[in-house]
């Protein structure tokens, strides 16, 4: 299944490894920031909703 990359295996696999790492890192960071802000906003809205009756 794995193609024979010959003497270029390091550069080809290195390229895919680095790219996947950077993309996954950005996606994880984006989801984490989304969850953090969403939670904080919900807390403040609930608090202010209670305060306003």
């Amino acid at each position, binding site marked *: 299944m794995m193609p024979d990359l*010959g003497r270029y295996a390091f*550069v080809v696999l290195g*390229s895919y490894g*680095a790219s996947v790492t950077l993309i996954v890192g950005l996606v994880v960071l984006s989801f984490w920031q989304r969850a953090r802000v969403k939670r904080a906003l919900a807390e403040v809205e609930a608090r202010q909703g209670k305060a306003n009756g």
Partner: protein
Amino acid sequence: MSIWEYANPKKFMQTSAWALPWAIGLTVLCLCVGLIWGFFFTPDDYRQGSTVKIIYLHVPAAMMAINAWTMMLVTSLIWIVRRHHVSALAAKAAAPVGLTFTLIALVTGALWGQPMWGTWWAWDPRLTSFLILTLFYFGYIALWAAIEDPDTAADLTAILCLVGSAFALLSRYAVNFWNQGLHQGASLSLDKEENVSDVFWIPLVISIVGFVLLFVTLVLMRTRTEIRARRLSALLARERVA
């Protein structure tokens, strides 16, 4: 219906909530098909050997690094002219995505360049203008983080974006402007002689579509986060005053 309706944060949130699941699904599909096809099911190039498989990452990433800056330029201009907050926040949201694509293009370019050119790096016009574009991305993100008032930050980063556009343009056309250096011209061309071979072309186009969709998906998601963060700061400011 006008495009300016989407400058309304509420309308943007509604529309993007509907579009986001589709965008995520299509992104995963195109990236998986394009990259798996390119990596596992394409032959080696007769001159470049298996390093040709890097094309499915390097070309789409480099393309999107420049296109991301172009999108930031358009949204920055909309901010400057029409003062729509969503456009300024979309530019802010796009910057880390563009930076990631720029880093992918630089890393894969260095890894590809070493066996083909015999060097990881050369002060070639395209490579140098791309490196400067990367520094502009870092500067743009740092400027947003450094200024507390969001409108002032949006104004100043918009100006920085206008200046950086010169290097985005140079990154794309440096090979044509200065006919020297190691980097080749465009891989995709309407000229059959210059275009990549058909066997590489289809997975490459699918990968490019995947990268475009990844950009759209992440920008939509991050813009939604920025809109929520802006609302959160407004509510907290109101709490402090009360």
